[in-house]
Each structure stands twice: as structure tokens, then as C-alpha cells.
């Protein structure tokens, strides 16, 4: 079946960026972006959002609850370029400057139903010790030009990071016409 006449399938994703686990930080907020390939289009909903600033609680140290909703419908002809959710967690340092605390990415689930995604996060490291010290004074910490950089494999080899913490995303996924187009996302051993 050629790409042009194959028709489209729809994918509905609804859920929330529920919480993050960052033991040594305080006052964090989270930005999410849904990144997809050129065969995909968003038909309804918002592709990115920024949450409120959450402070940590004394009962659950290191836990930051955002409960930031995600609701998006996508369509595509082919599964390649499958959508990913990119999260970027920012925090304020002691001078009130925005500092990135971690980036993370994960593909959205390939099967329908309820899913919990645990997304480990990492922040870029300065190349030299001197830059590390200067960055602390001048507030110029290394960060990616676009947070969606982490959703692609190109250019990653020149980056050094320190991974720390994770973000929990809960989502429900439903498909329309995925099987009708001949795609299989589960083993066919039922019959």
C-alpha cells in the first residue's frame, strides 16, 4: 500500500505530568513538549505547556507534584516518527535565576490503555572546571538551545551530562483505525 493512499490513523493521548523526584532541589517547574516526525500532525489539543512552580513538602522530601494535564490528538499515516514526550525541569537558584535541572524524553506508549512512564532526567555539564565556576557566578549554566534536542539522536556525541532525578507521567492512549490500516502493535496469538 503506497503512503499517499494508505489513509490515516488517530492517536488520542490524555493524562498528566504527575510528579518529579529531585532530592536536592526546591521550587521546580516542568515544561513538556510533544515531539513527532514529519508524517504526524496534531489535530486537537496543545503540544506544549509549562506547569506551576512546586515547592517540596516536608512529608515527602524530593517529591514535587505538578499534576499538569496533557490532552492531545494526533494523526499520521505511518508509525515512524512516533511521538515522544520531552520534559524539561527548571528551578530557581538562590539568586532567583531560572536554571535547568533536567531534560528527559520518552516515546508515548505503542499500545492502548493506561500507562505510567518513568522518565529519567539529565542536565548538561560544563566542559571545563573554569566554566563551571564562572557559570555559577554569572548565571550562565549550560543548557540546550531547544529542549527538543533530546528527542533526536543527532549531535548527542558532543554532550556530557549528569543524570539526576526523574519525572512520572501518567497517560491513557487510544487508537482509531490503527489495525484497519494493517498495523500490529500486539502479538496475534489470540486465534
Amino acid at each position, binding site marked *: 500500500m503506497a503512503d499517499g493512499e494508505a489513509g490515516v490513523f488517530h492517536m488520542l493521548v490524555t493524562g498528566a505530568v504527575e510528579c518529579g523526584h529531585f532530592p536536592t532541589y526546591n521550587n521546580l517547574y516542568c515544561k513538556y513538549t510533544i515531539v513527532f516526525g514529519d508524517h504526524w500532525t496534531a489535530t486537537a489539543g496543545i503540544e506544549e505547556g509549562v506547569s506551576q512552580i512546586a515547592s517540596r513538602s516536608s512529608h515527602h522530601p524530593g517529591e514535587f507534584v505538578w499534576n499538569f494535564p496533557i490532552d492531545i490528538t494526533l494523526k499520521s499515516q505511518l508509525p515512524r516518527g512516533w511521538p515522544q514526550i520531552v520534559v524539561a525541569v527548571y528551578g530557581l537558584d538562590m539568586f532567583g535565576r531560572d536554571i535547568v535541572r533536567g531534560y528527559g524524553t520518552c516515546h508515548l506508549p505503542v499500545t492502548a490503555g493506561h500507562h505510567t512512564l518513568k522518565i*529519567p532526567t*539529565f542536565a548538561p555539564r560544563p566542559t571545563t572546571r573554569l566554566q563551571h565556576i564562572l557559570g555559577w557566578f554569572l548565571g550562565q549554566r549550560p543548557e540546550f538551545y531547544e529542549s527538543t534536542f533530546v528527542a533526536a539522536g543527532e549531535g548527542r556525541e558532543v554532550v556530557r551530562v549528569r543524570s539526576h532525578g526523574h519525572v512520572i507521567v501518567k497517560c491513557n492512549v487510544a487508537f482509531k483505525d490503527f489495525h484497519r490500516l494493517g498495523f500490529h502493535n500486539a502479538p496475534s496469538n489470540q486465534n
Partner: protein
Amino acid sequence: MAEVFVFGQVRGASGFPQRSLFCTWEAIHGAGWRLLRGAGDGRTHVDAPAPDHDVTWAHPLDMHFAVQSMQGWPKLGFKVYHQDDFGRNELYGYGVCHIPMSPGSHTLECACCQPSTSGIESFYQSLVGGSLQLKSDDAVHTQVDRFKLKTKTMGTVHVQLNIVTRGFEAYGIEM
């Protein structure tokens, strides 16, 4: 022609002796397979994680294969390196992970091993550093000359893969 979509992540690694690690990966497939779109190899960033954290690469893969023959179902080959404070890279292990045949979501663990030596060479190695490398990476995923090798156990690479297939049932293939 049947199609296979493979997408997911090289998530990270655990169990290696040092923690500042990166890896290179490549997709290895038979002659009846053609990579239509997507990178077939790559290199991850270098991660030196926080003390209580596993090495995280989160390196996305997205491959679209056209298949003429089931023979030569693709595998992922990994080479894990350690990068020290001076930026020197040292090979820490080879690993191969078979891409699952069944459609759906899979979490895979790929065990790695490093070529090792005994006697005086390992003594030199402990003094000047460095590690042995295979002349050809083919030895990792073929049976050729394997009995001559001596290896030692290293850590595990964690991979998360989603498989979507299309068109296999037209050829009577059940998965």
C-alpha cells in the same frame, strides 16, 4: 513487502565498574532487509550520574525497515566506553541485543562483556590503562573465531523498544 517499525530508546546502563559512560550502537541486519528511514547507528552522550542514579542515555531510535526475507532479523550491537576526567575513552564492553519479533512494547537488558587477557599483558594494562579491542566488531554477533576469545563480564545496557509490524500476515507469517 512487509514492514517493521522499530522505535524506542537506549535508556542507559548499570553494573559497570566506572560511571562516566557512553555507548555507540548500530543496527545489524540481513541482506533481505532495507532501512528505509531513520539512523542505523549513533553515539550517545557521556553521562556521569548523581551518586544514587543509574547511567542515563535516553538516546532515541526510530527505524523503518522493509523486509523481503525473515532471515536476518535485526539486532542492535553496542560498544560501551568509559570517558575519564581527561577525555580519554576506554572500551568497557561489547553487547548484542536481538530486536524482538513480536509487536508491542519490550524492555530489554543486554549483557556486555569485555575481551580480556591474562598474565603479563593484564599487568601492563593495570599500569598504563587502556583496554583490548576486537579487530572486527563482527566477532560480537557471529560465531566466527569465537572460541579463541577470552572475555570478562561487565555491566548491562537497558533498552526499551516498541515494535509495530505490517503486512506479514499476507505471507502467512504469524507473530
